[in-house]
């Protein structure tokens, strides 16, 4: 009986799937990309769900348990997870996952961020002085991220380096094809003026040539107020804004009010992979975002 219990506990503790590397990512988009690159040789789980705002994840002890069993912890960086990830890393008591170790990877190392604030303080809201961390919606930057992740998988699991390299090539090939498709779909709307809610889609809009003229948040992380919405109504009318893009985990009411008072159309978009039923993988999510933008502007 005791042997059976020990086997049961071991199977839980060691993970039921057989994989060379156990990877924990902070967000679902990183999970999806890592799974594509690691294939059958990795077992990947994400801490934040696609329906959650990753700025405000609760550092649940069960996440700490998952991190403690990981070989590799992949985060976005640029202080996106600074409110909860340090607690999980220290609590996990795994020296190999400490910052600077091969088991700890922040993918922002691979990209040059936008929206860098040279001078920042909290009167400006919940700002990220080092840059906007929502770069996974930028198709080119994701290629750089994928290269970095693939390289780290190879470093930690050298026998399968060739497999990781092949998976990277496939991912990049698919991404290049997708980029051509997405660009073609959104080309007619180049220069369109949009209003966002948070800064989640800044990279996406910039990449496809949209112009962001304002945000429903009064300041990053600060709730919209009636006065701010009034000022946005005037701005949207003056600037001929055509689209209001709101992350689907935010309250849609401020966006609905703005849409009612202007000619702009409101679209609710998943901010992350797993943000809705149609966005289970990275490419499904990007397809969904591009489709949403196109439908909103037709």
């Amino acid at each position, binding site marked *: 009986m005791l042997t059976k219990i020990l086997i049961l*506990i071991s199977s*839980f*503790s060691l993970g039921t799937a057989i994989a060379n590397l156990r990877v924990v990512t902070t967000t679902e988009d990183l999970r999806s990309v890592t799974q594509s690159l690691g294939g059958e040789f990795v077992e990947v789980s994400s801490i934040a*769900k696609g*329906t*959650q*705002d990753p*700025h*405000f994840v*609760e*550092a*649940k*002890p*069960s996440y*700490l*348990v998952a991190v*403690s069993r990981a070989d590799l912890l992949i985060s976005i960086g640029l202080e996106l997870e*600074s*409110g*909860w990830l*340090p*607690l999980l890393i*220290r*609590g*996990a*008591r*795994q*020296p190999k996952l*400490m910052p*600077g170790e091969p088991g700890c990877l922040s993918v922002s190392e691979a990209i040059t961020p936008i929206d*860098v604030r*040279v*001078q920042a303080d*909290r009167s400006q809201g*919940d700002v990220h*002085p*080092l840059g906007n961390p929502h770069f996974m919606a930028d198709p080119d930057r994701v290629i750089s991220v994928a290269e970095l992740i693939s390289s780290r998988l190879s470093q930690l699991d050298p026998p399968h380096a060739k497999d990781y390299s092949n998976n990277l090539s496939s991912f990049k090939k698919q991404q290049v094809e997708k980029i051509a498709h997405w660009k073609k779909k959104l080309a007619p709307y180049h220069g369109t003026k949009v209003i966002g809610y948070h800064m989640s889609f800044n990279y996406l809009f910039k990449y496809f040539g949209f112009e962001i003229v304002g945000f429903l948040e009064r300041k990053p*992380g*600060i*709730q919209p107020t009636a006065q701010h919405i009034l000022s946005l109504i005037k701005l949207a009318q003056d600037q001929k804004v055509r689209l209001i893009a709101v*992350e689907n*985990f*935010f*309250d849609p009411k401020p966006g609905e009010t703005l849409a009612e008072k202007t000619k702009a159309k409101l679209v609710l978009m998943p901010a992350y992979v797993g943000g809705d039923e149609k966005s289970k993988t990275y490419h499904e999510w990007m397809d969904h975002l591009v489709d949403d933008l196109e439908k909103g502007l037709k």
Partner: protein
Amino acid sequence: MRIIVLSLVLTLSTSLFAETFFYGKLLGGTQQVDRTMNPAISMNGIFLGNWGPAINENKGIQLQELEGQFTAAVDPYFFANFILSIEGGEISPEEAWVSTLGLPVVSLKMGKFFQNFGKNNLIHTHAQPLIDRPLVNQLIFGEEAFNTSGIQADILVPLPWYLNLSVAGVTAKNSDVYQTSRDEDLANVTRLENLWDITDSTTLGLAGSYSVGNNKANNLSHYLGIDLTLKYVSPKGRGNLAIVWTNEYIKGWRRGYMNLSEPEWDNGYGIYSILMARIHPVFWLGGRYDQVKLTSDSTNSQTAENVIIAYVPTEFSSVRLQSGLTQETGQETKWQALLQLNVTIGSHPAHAY
């Protein structure tokens, strides 16, 4: 005069250069590295107004506490956390400890810290769910909580759920809990904490704590605690519905206290139950029920009921209004009203779950 002008020019040009160099290099230059090596520094200010016959001292509006915190990795092997508290015009080290970073499964901590006993004892003043601590913590552990120096080992037990075993050897001297003045008196603090994910959004925490050590009556004091927490946080977005229900029971036996020249309680217990709900992205509503019984030659019993509403626009500020009633054996019911402004500036580390 020439020297003064030269000094002024030098000072201005140096500070201007430093500013330009700093901001210019923010994205990876040497100055950023210098700043990165600084500890995370934060200052927490708590301003309190309290009124009513249930308040024993310091009524009116006052600076309740200033708390300065410095945290950083020392090197690849150690992490340090120093917290200075300024309260009533006195500066004192509220916590000062160093923990290991380089050990698997276990972490060791040495220094002065809030002991890992029960749910509420670890929570700093600015992070308390209600403005004041629960009665049981105030009356059994004292105003300063169970806070003393020692060495603590935390072991993450490899099980499918979160199970943390914490064992500490601490000095009993000068602690409100053991009240001994002898250098050699030591106490043990042990806590076993479980936490299960019932669903993605709901967790159940159940923990037991025990402490034993020499007391000022040259005998043993024992403390036993059990706490249970049920927490729901909506998995969607930010600032949506959250409900936290916390319950704690603490019992203490202080052997020999009846034989002191001025006898004190030797047997006591207390419970509290706190229910807090985030009903709006920036508003929390909650309440707490307290019951404590302390026995010396007779039994003194206290109960209290408090409600609170909190405006929390960001994680760096809150305004809270609390009101409550306290009943004590043989006395009239007393009321209290508390208003608190709580702000944090700087880089304050995240609070535990």
